[in-house]
């Protein structure tokens, strides 16, 4: 394959700068020693990272986000595994409609979902509670868990299961000893992607968040609405660092382009 010419590499360089500049500037400003927004030209300082400790609402929001993401993704994965097996394995009337319904949170604007959830939970008296937030997040991240599990289930060699049955495995043994282990990479990468989606979700959550159960993106958003100062950059930089870590792990284990384009099975 021929290589890129100088013009292509110039374009590529500018493109990468365009993509990274806003992220880099956030990370740089976070290290400013000044009391206002500026690049750390006079040396780096951690004062704004230390300052986070004085704002318990950010710390609290971080834990809310972490728990919410972990639990919501786990529940979503638990719902997704049987659904994915059904869609991958069976042909039945309404199968297409069903998978469209399960993927619909990707198509419906999150602002609409936020409004619908707010209305629903207000009517049912759950508004402003953690369970309400949890249920909403399960639904919103469900498509991510489903798609990667579905890809794994579809890519699986059915004759492996037939072999297990012919050797005497009952349906529960079959699932536990053969099917689940084989689709596990897809389930785990689905869980991880779902977690990141939940961790970053703002638009829908902003309708449901209440004092005490604000997620980190909501806290950051509301803070920025009032004023932009170095504190919010250090919080953002921390979020970016955590995300990058998850990203590198996800890429190492599953291949980022595969995870993001919804092909959860690991090649080979």
């Amino acid at each position, binding site marked *: 394959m021929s290589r890129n010419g100088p013009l292509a590499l110039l374009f590529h360089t500018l493109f990468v700068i365009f993509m990274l500049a806003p992220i880099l500037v956030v990370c740089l400003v976070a290290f400013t020693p000044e009391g206002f927004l500026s690049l750390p030209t006079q040396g780096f300082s951690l004062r704004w990272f230390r300052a986070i400790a004085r704002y318990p609402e950010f710390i609290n929001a971080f834990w809310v986000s972490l728990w919410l993401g972990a639990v919501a993704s786990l529940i979503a994965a638990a719902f997704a595994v049987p659904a994915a097996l059904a869609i991958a394995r069976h042909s039945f009337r309404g199968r297409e409609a069903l998978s469209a319904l399960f993927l619909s949170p990707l198509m419906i604007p999150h602002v609409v979902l936020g409004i619908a959830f707010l209305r629903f939970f207000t009517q049912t008296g759950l508004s402003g509670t953690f369970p309400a937030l949890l249920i909403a997040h399960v639904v919103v991240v469900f498509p991510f868990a489903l798609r990667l599990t579905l890809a794994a289930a579809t890519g699986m*060699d059915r004759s492996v299961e037939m*072999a297990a*049955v*012919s050797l005497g495995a009952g349906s529960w*043994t079959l699932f536990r*000893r*053969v099917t689940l282990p084989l689709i596990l990479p897809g389930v785990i990468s689905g869980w991880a992607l779902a977690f990141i989606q939940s961790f970053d979700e703002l638009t829908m959550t902003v309708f449901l968040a209440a004092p005490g159960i604000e997620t980190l993106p909501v806290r950051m958003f509301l803070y920025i609405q009032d004023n932009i100062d170095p504190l919010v950059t250090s919080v953002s930089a921390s979020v970016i660092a955590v995300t990058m870590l998850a990203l590198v792990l996800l890429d190492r284990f599953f291949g980022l382009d595969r995870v993001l384009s919804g092909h959860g099975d690991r090649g080979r």
Partner: protein
Amino acid sequence: MAFLELDGVTKRFGPHVAVEQLDLTVAKGEFVSLLGPSGCGKTTTLQMIAGFLDLTGGAIRLEGRNLAEIHPSRRGLGIVFQSYALFPHMTAAENVAFGLEMRRVPAAERAERVEAALAMVGLAGFADRYPRRMSGGQQQRVALARALVIRPSLLLLDEPLSNLDAKLREEMQIELRQIQRNLGTTTILVTHDQVEAMSLSDRIVVMNTGRVEQIGTPQETYERPASAFVANFLGKTNEFAGTIEAGTQPARIVAGSWSAPAPAGFSGPVTVSVRPEKIGFAGAGQGLAARVAIRIFQGNHWLFQCETECGPAIVIRQNDGMAQPAEGEAVRLAWRPEDMSLRAAGVRP
């Protein structure tokens, strides 16, 4: 009593008929091949015996019990899949042990039997390998060991050798036949490879578009094909249009310049079918007049593409060191009457 009995087995997928009225009885210890091109219904038949597909009609009985009443996981059959279907997350030994675990065989006996099974297929030192780290041939052996270790009443092989290269395939054929003979396990093999079917089986079931074309020993199906399909599917064959001339006494069969005494039971136009290796070059004035169009050297034999009075013909001659006709040379083709098979022309037997 027949060990395995397929009685009018039929499978339809919607309007499509995959298998129609298949009757077959298999004796204990017998090795039977289902042979045919893809889509002929052979794999469907195997899947119905295994229980992965339900029958549309008919019944399958194993030692007198109707298999429809037995769940696939309780049939106790050993199956080797085309893809091997090894459990990728288990080692070779764990793969082989799986069926024994399901049967709650005690751990000590299990280990013993797994070891013996792996040794039997020549994989004694590979117990802790994962399938991913094994060659195709080794994976194939693990699959065979896994199917045999449960001492199945019936062994089903679904194109087990088709993913191996030619040389390895030949080796595995010999090995498979030895193992099967030693254990005496009744075996059904599904294959599209006529050489494999002939070299392994006691009997061959030739299938086409869901129907049985012929059931017989390898020699019977090769030497006395019951139909044009069988003749063509089991190796190359030459077909000449001929006629029975009843005017002379005794009647003679004539194809171009070739003629021979006619066998009983035929009249009018017939199709003469002769295997390429059964045709020889005769002296002037005898046999069918022909001309060598192309001559190809293939090591242990020569292959001649000839133009005869009755259309093209292929002749295969052993490379015995003798001089062979050159391209363009006029030749005479002859064969012994017992080496040909006759069919009434234009009629599908």
